[in-house]
């Protein structure tokens, strides 16, 4: 078993008082709570903090831990695989400092197996033939998968207790069909892939919450898509027809004359093909040609001479 330096995890001295530990834990718990901190790894970190606090906030466990830790080098850092909290399946966080009916020989089981223990105890409270609890996990897919629908194999990491009482990560691979038109935040239900039922109750369901990888040029918002479209100054000023990518392929877009920077144009029904389909919003971004040749400079100079244009006229008074 890997030795964990719980003091380092909470950032406190070995001599820290109970109050110091409490303060350190509370501060870190707010910082890394996975519902508040969306960075990869926050869930792992949060669990570690919880585990460290669970031990260090309980005088008996702390004493046992201190004794056990003698002669060990303060921790090789536990290195969770990158992105571990993505596709992580959970029913809840281990209870915090649950009352101590645990006996000492089960010390490590208690330390590393709480998630399971809690789950078991919640089964015990349930009716005899009850349906298993539902599980939730988040998966990250390509936006394109939603344009046409797709079949994807996903791997979820499920914490399980090994026979010797250690928490191990089991990988579970599932085939999932991504329905066409799925939006961020929607859920796919896999029937009976949640917790096993109790007695004759059937298993719970597994819900997968959809999120998208950032896309090269589309920004999804619900079932609408936003696209920044670079245009030349003359296209914006004189109008013209340009080609625009949409989930269904390239389409022609008419740019009206005298379009301003940032003009938003709606292509109805060209967003994510949900029911009803979302819209595609094209936002014009006027790109200036660089004045990097005599000819280009000449044209700019002509414009300066010929056009009566002062974008700062409203600043002229200075007050």
């Amino acid at each position, binding site marked *: 078993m890997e030795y964990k330096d719980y003091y380092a995890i909470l950032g406190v001295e070995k001599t820290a008082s109970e109050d110091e530990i409490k303060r350190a834990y509370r501060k870190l718990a707010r910082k890394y709570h996975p519902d508040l901190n969306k960075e990869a790894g926050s869930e792992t970190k949060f669990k570690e903090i919880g585990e460290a606090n669970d031990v260090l906030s309980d005088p008996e466990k702390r004493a046992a831990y201190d004794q056990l830790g003698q002669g060990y080098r303060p921790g090789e850092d536990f290195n969770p695989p990158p992105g571990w909290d993505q596709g992580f399946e959970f029913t809840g966080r281990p209870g915090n400092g649950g009352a101590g009916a645990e006996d000492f020989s089960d010390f490590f089981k208690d330390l590393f197996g709480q998630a399971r223990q809690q789950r078991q105890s919640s089964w015990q409270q349930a009716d005899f033939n009850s349906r298993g609890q539902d599980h939730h996990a988040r998966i990250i897919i390509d936006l394109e998968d939603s344009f046409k629908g797709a079949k994807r194999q996903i791997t979820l990491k499920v914490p399980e207790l090994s026979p010797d009482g250690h928490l191990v990560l089991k990988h579970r691979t599932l085939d999932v069909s991504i329905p066409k038109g799925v939006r961020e935040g929607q859920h796919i239900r896999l029937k009976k892939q949640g917790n096993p039922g109790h007695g004759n109750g059937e298993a719970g*369901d597994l819900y997968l919450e959809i999120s998208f990888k950032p896309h090269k040029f589309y920004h999804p918002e619900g079932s609408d898509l936003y696209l920044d479209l670079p245009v030349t100054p003359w296209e914006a000023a004189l109008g013209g027809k340009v080609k625009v990518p949409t989930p269904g392929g390239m389409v022609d877009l008419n740019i009206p004359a005298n379009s301003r920077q940032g003009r938003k144009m709606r292509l109805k029904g060209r967003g994510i093909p949900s029911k009803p389909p979302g819209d595609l919003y094209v936002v014009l971004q006027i790109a200036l040609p660089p004045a990097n040749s005599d000819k280009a400079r000449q044209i700019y100079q002509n414009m300066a001479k010929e056009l009566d244009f002062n974008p700062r006229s409203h600043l002229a008074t200075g007050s």
Partner: protein
Amino acid sequence: MSNNLITDKSVISLNELCQSCGLGTKTIISYVEEGLVDVGGDDTSRWQFTQTHIVTIQKAHRLERDLRLNPAGSVLVLELMAQIDELKNQLRRYQQSGEE
């Protein structure tokens, strides 16, 4: 494997929700009373929870339990988080436009 998309049209009742996520009715009612989710009217037997509601309620409950909040506090946190997310999205769009 049977597999279906949950739309906002598939709803479950308060009892089914308790079964699904293992929370007590009291807990769930406290969130509805705080206005975290709008599940339709005062009659608890007619409440309808969508998948989005369920996930929101579970988040609120985890925050309440893990950070020693009360229902009003966790609902406030979630509302502020939603605002921050919205602002971050807007900011990202502006920054990307600016880089062109």
